[in-house]
C-alpha cells in the first residue's frame, strides 16, 4: 500500500537532516563504488583470458608430425613421418563417435596480388569443417564447401585484413586474386577473434591445394574437435588413445615425443577455467566484504540516528504512534538512503569504468572492463535488502523505546 503521508514524513526527516543523511549515504556510495570498480576490473581480467583462447574452439585437438627420435621396429631414428589423406580418413572412421569436426590441413606460403597491391600470406588448404575448428566467422560470401572439394575449384576465402590490404575501397567478393601465378576467385571473407595474424590467412579447398602444390595427397596436420559430450577426463583419454593408435600405425616408439604430437586444448582450457574460477571467488569475497562493511556502516549510523531521535520518537509515541509506524519510518528511511546512495555509487563506478578506464588498461591484461545488467539488477536488490538489514536493528530498537524514558531524556 502506498502511504503518501508516510513518505512525506520520511522525506521531511531526510531533508531536514541533510548532513546526517548525506553522511550515511556516503558510506554506502563509497562501498558500492569500490565494489563496482573492483568487479569491473576483475571482469576485464577475465575477458582477457577468454579472448586469448577465443580464436580456437576450446575442445580442439591438433595432430602434428615430425621426425622420429627413437629407432623402432627396424626403422632408424630421424625418419620423417608424413600424414596423408588416408590418415585423415582413418582417424575420421576410427573415432567417428568421438569427433565433432575434423579437417586435414595443407599449409603453404603465397604471394598474393590484386592489381597493384601485393603481399605475402599464409595459405591453408582445408575441409569445410575447418571453419568450426578455428571458429572463423564469415562476414561476407561463403566458406569452402563440398562442391569446391569435389571439383578442385580455384576459389579462396580470405581474412578481413587480407581484403583490407589488397582491396582499396572495394569489395573483394567475386574478384580474382593472383596467388603465385594462378588466379583464384574470392568467394568469402571471414573474421577471427584471435588477433590480426589470424585474419591474414587465405583458405582454399584442400584438394585444390594438393593438386597445385606437389600434386600429391600429403597433409601437414590434422585438426579436429571432440564431441562436446565428452568430459575433461574422457577428452584427455581420447587424445592419448589417438596418440597410441597413430604411433602404432606409423611404427613409432611409444617413448618418441616428436614423431607424432597431439595437442589437446582441453588441458589449457582446464587451467584457464580454474584461474577464472579462482579470480571470481576472490572478487566475490572482496565484493561482499565491502558490501558488508557498507551495511555495518549504515547500521551504525542508523543506530546513532535512532539515539539522536529518541526524544522525537518518544513524543510521537505519546501522541499515538504505534510501534509499527515507528519501524516503518526508520526502516524505509534506511532503505531509501541505502538504495539511492548505493545507486549513485554504482553509477559513478560504471561511469569510471566506461569513461575513465575504458580500453586504456589493455596493456595490463584488462579488456573491456564493465558490469553486466543482470549484476546491476542484482546489486539493486542487494542494496534494498542491505538497507532493510541495516535498518532493522535500529528500527526495532526505536520501536522499543519507552516514551517515558525518551521524554525524560532532556
Amino acid at each position, binding site marked *: 500500500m502506498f502511504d503518501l503521508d508516510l513518505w512525506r514524513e520520511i522525506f521531511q526527516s531526510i531533508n531536514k537532516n541533510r548532513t546526517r543523511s548525506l553522511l550515511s549515504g556516503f558510506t554506502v556510495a563509497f562501498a558500492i563504488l569500490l565494489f563496482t570498480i573492483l568487479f569491473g576490473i576483475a571482469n576485464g581480467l577475465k575477458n582477457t583470458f577468454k579472448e586469448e583462447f577465443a580464436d580456437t574452439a576450446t575442445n580442439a585437438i591438433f595432430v602434428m608430425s615430425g621426425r622420429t627420435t627413437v629407432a623402432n621396429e627396424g626403422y632408424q631414428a630421424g625418419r620423417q613421418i608424413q600424414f596423408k589423406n588416408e590418415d585423415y580418413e582413418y582417424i575420421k572412421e576410427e573415432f567417428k563417435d568421438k569427433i565433432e569436426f575434423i579437417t586435414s590441413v595443407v599449409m603453404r606460403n603465397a604471394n598474393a596480388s590484386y592489381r597493384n597491391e601485393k603481399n605475402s600470406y599464409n595459405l591453408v588448404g582445408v575441409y569445410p569443417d575447418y571453419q568450426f575448428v578455428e571458429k572463423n566467422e564469415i562476414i561476407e560470401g561463403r566458406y569452402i564447401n563440398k562442391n569446391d572439394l569435389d571439383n578442385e575449384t580455384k576459389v579462396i576465402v580470405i581474412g578481413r585484413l587480407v581484403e583490407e590490404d589488397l582491396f582499396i575501397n572495394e569489395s573483394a567478393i567475386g574478384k580474382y586474386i593472383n596467388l603465385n601465378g594462378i588466379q583464384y576467385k574470392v568467394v568469402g571473407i571471414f573474421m577471427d577473434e584471435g588477433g590480426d595474424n589470424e585474419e591474414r590467412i587465405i583458405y582454399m579447398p584442400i584438394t585444390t591445394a594438393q593438386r597445385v602444390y606437389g600434386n600429391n595427397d600429403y597433409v601437414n596436420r590434422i585438426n579436429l574437435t571432440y564431441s562436446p559430450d565428452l568430459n575433461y577426463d574422457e577428452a584427455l583419454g581420447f587424445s592419448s588413445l589417438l596418440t597410441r593408435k597413430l604411433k602404432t600405425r606409423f611404427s613409432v616408439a611409444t617413448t618418441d615425443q616428436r614423431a607424432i604430437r597431439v595437442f589437446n586444448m582441453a588441458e589449457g582450457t582446464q587451467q584457464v577455467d580454474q584461474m577464472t574460477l579462482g579470480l571470481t571467488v576472490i572478487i566475490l569475497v572482496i565484493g561482499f566484504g565491502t558490501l558488508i562493511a557498507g551495511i555495518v556502516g549504515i547500521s551504525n549510523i542508523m543506530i546513532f540516528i535512532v539515539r539522536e531521535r529518541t526524544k522525537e520518537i518518544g513524543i510521537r*509515541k*505519546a501522541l*499515538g*504512534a504505534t510501534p509499527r509506524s515507528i519501524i516503518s519510518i526508520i526502516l524505509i528511511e534506511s532503505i531509501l538512503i541505502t538504495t539511492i546512495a548505493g545507486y549513485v555509487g554504482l553509477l559513478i563506478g560504471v561511469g569510471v569504468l566506461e569513461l575513465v578506464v575504458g580500453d586504456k588498461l589493455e596493456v595490463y591484461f584488462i579488456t573491456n572492463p564493465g558490469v553486466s545488467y543482470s549484476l546491476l539488477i542484482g546489486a539493486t536488490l542487494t542494496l534494498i535488502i542491505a538497507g532493510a538489514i541495516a535498518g532493522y536493528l535500529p528500527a526495532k530498537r526505536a520501536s522499543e523505546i519507552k516514551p517515558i524514558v525518551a521524554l525524560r531524556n532532556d
Partner: protein
Amino acid sequence: MLQISQLHKSYPIGDSSLHVLKGIDLSVEEGEMVAIMGSSGSGKSTLLNIIGMLDEADSGDYILDGLKIKDLTEKKAAVYRNKFLGFIFQSFNLINYKNALENVALPLYYQGMKRKERQELAMYHLEKVGLANWAHHLPKELSGGQKQRVAIARALAANPKLLLADEPTGALDTVTSHEIMAFIQQLNDEGKTILMVTHEEDIANMCKRIVRLRDGVIIEDTKVEQVRAEQHV
C-alpha cells in the same frame, strides 16, 4: 471519568527496589481541574505517567472513562493515548524540524486523518491559541510561551477526554506562566478535564482541587477556591 484504587509502583534500583507509589486512591470527575503537588520524589510524576499510559502500574486498578487500563499492548496503548489523552510537557516537546502547524497536526496523522482535513483542524486549534500567524514557523523561531501554546494546541487537536500537564509552566517566566494558566483555565471552563503536576503553590491554587503527595501516598485532597489567572496578567 477516572478512578484509581490501590495503585502501587516500584522501580528497581540495583538489587533493591524503590517503592514510589504506595497505594494511591484517586477519582476525578469530568470537568475537574486537579493539581497534583508534592516535593520531588513524592511520586507525582510517576502517577501522571501511569495515568498517561506512558508507564504501567505494578498493581491496582485504573479505569479511564469506563475502560479498564491494564496489560496494554504497545499498539493499544498508542491508540488509547491518541484517543483519550492530551499531553502538555514542561519542556514543550515539539518536534524541532516540523513547523507549528505540522506539530499540531501530528496526533491527527496518527489517527489516520487525511492531510487536508488535519491541516484545517490543526489551523483551527492554532487560531484558538492565537498563533495562526505563526503556523509556518519552526519551534526555534518561537518564544517559550508560544511554544507551550503550540503544545497545548497539539494536545487539544485530537479532542482528548483528559488533558495531562506535567509542570506546564516550569520553564516559563511568571507573566507567561499566568498567560498559559489563563488559557488552561479557559479550556477547563469549556468543560475539559485537566490533571496537572506542579510544585508551585500559586499555580496549584489556580486549579479547583489540590491533591498532595508525600512518599508515595496522598496526604491531602482538598477542593480550593480557584484563583483566576487573568487577575495576574
